[in-house]
């Protein structure tokens, strides 16, 4: 067999083994973060500090994009529904697509690129400048002090951000269809309220956003902690955070949707 083919197969095998290795490492790291989060939850002002950076500072991008997504949904929905004379159902369309899918998913994608990348870069740079090692020297556990507060802040802020995204979207749809186009206000709200169910739509959307919050922050934190301690390594880790968490969000969304909405109505 030619040498080139052999080495090609070898490199594929190497990559597969390498990624499985990293997956195992990531799982172990995730368990470690959960085990050591007791200390950081007891010192809750560490989490509050991180909530400010991940949650509060992501607020503007979430609110503005929620508004625009809702406005576009309203416009597009109106254009299509109006052909069938059922433009009053536009409220249902906007609310259901936001609460079930777009709210959790788009908010999580934005969160991954806004806050997730920042977490990775911060932790990666701390590692590159040997701040984490210095903490270890002072008998301060870097996972409990640095990683766990960031993880919990992300997990807490994600459902809130998704809910705000959905609310702003519904408001944006209202703005375009009722205020600008002139769909009847009563039918916008009443059709929405009769179609959206608390248990099946809102609660499931909330559960989805909790899952996404855990996934995004776990990936971001791990990539930062595992980043090679060089400038190039940190930049690569930041890219990987955004790419991996986007893929995980979309894949997880499919799995969760299949579990939640199968056989319902």
């Amino acid at each position, binding site marked *: 067999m030619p040498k080139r083919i052999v080495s090609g197969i070898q490199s594929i095998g190497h990559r597969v083994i390498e990624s499985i290795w990293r997956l195992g490492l990531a799982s172990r790291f995730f368990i470690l973060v959960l085990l050591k989060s007791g200390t950081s939850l007891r010192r809750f002002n560490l989490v509050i500090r991180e909530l400010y950076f991940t949650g509060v500072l992501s607020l503007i991008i979430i609110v503005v994009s929620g508004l625009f997504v809702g406005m576009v949904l309203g416009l597009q929905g109106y254009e299509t529904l109006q052909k069938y004379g059922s433009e009053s159902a536009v409220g249902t369309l906007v609310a259901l697509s936001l609460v079930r899918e777009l709210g959790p998913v788009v908010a999580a994608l934005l969160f991954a690129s806004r806050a997730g990348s920042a977490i990775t870069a911060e932790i990666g740079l701390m590692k590159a400048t040997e701040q984490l090692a210095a903490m270890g020297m002072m008998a301060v556990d870097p996972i409990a002090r640095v990683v766990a507060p960031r993880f919990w802040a992300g997990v807490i802020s994600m459902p809130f951000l998704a809910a705000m995204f959905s609310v702003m979207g519904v408001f944006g749809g209202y703005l375009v269809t009722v205020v600008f186009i002139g769909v009847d206000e009563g039918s916008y709200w009443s059709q929405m309220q009769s179609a959206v*169910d608390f248990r099946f739509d809102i609660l499931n959307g909330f559960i989805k956003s909790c899952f996404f919050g855990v996934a995004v922050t776990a990936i971001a934190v791990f990539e930062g902690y595992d980043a090679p301690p060089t400038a190039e390594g940190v930049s690569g880790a930041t890219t990987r955070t955004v790419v991996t968490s986007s893929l995980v969000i979309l894949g997880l969304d499919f799995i969760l949707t299949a579990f939640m909405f199968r056989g319902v109505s």
Partner: protein
Amino acid sequence: MQRTTMDLWVGLFVVMGIIALMILSLKVGNLNVYNPSQSYVITGNFENIGGLKVRAPVKSAGVVVGRVTNIQFSTETYDAVVTMSMDARFQFPKDTFASILTSGLLGEQYIGLAAGGDEAMLKAGDKIMKTNSAMVLEELIGRFLFNKAAEDDSF
């Protein structure tokens, strides 16, 4: 512990998040507190339920008085057994007539109750005796064509 402006912002963030969840559940989702202790369950056998689904509303005079909680097929009578959870505020006579109706031309299907004149009321676990199946379009067209053919023959 000293307070910082950061705490204020985070508090504001959490409050806004909770308000957003409240708006979603109350304004968008119309969460009506549904207390299962204040409801009673009745059943009804239907020859054909058409497109009736679990969670479909049970209406009387257009007002929602309950929900469909379960639909099963009975091998004893070979028809569908529909279980309905009714609001305890609304009591119906024993000879109430239940039929599967459609809201609008293409809308969802629901169970319509027309109250009878019996003195005795339906109790929990009772069965509605008078039922009317869903209207199935194919059957309707078939019947129409059959009648048309019969008319043509009479000439």
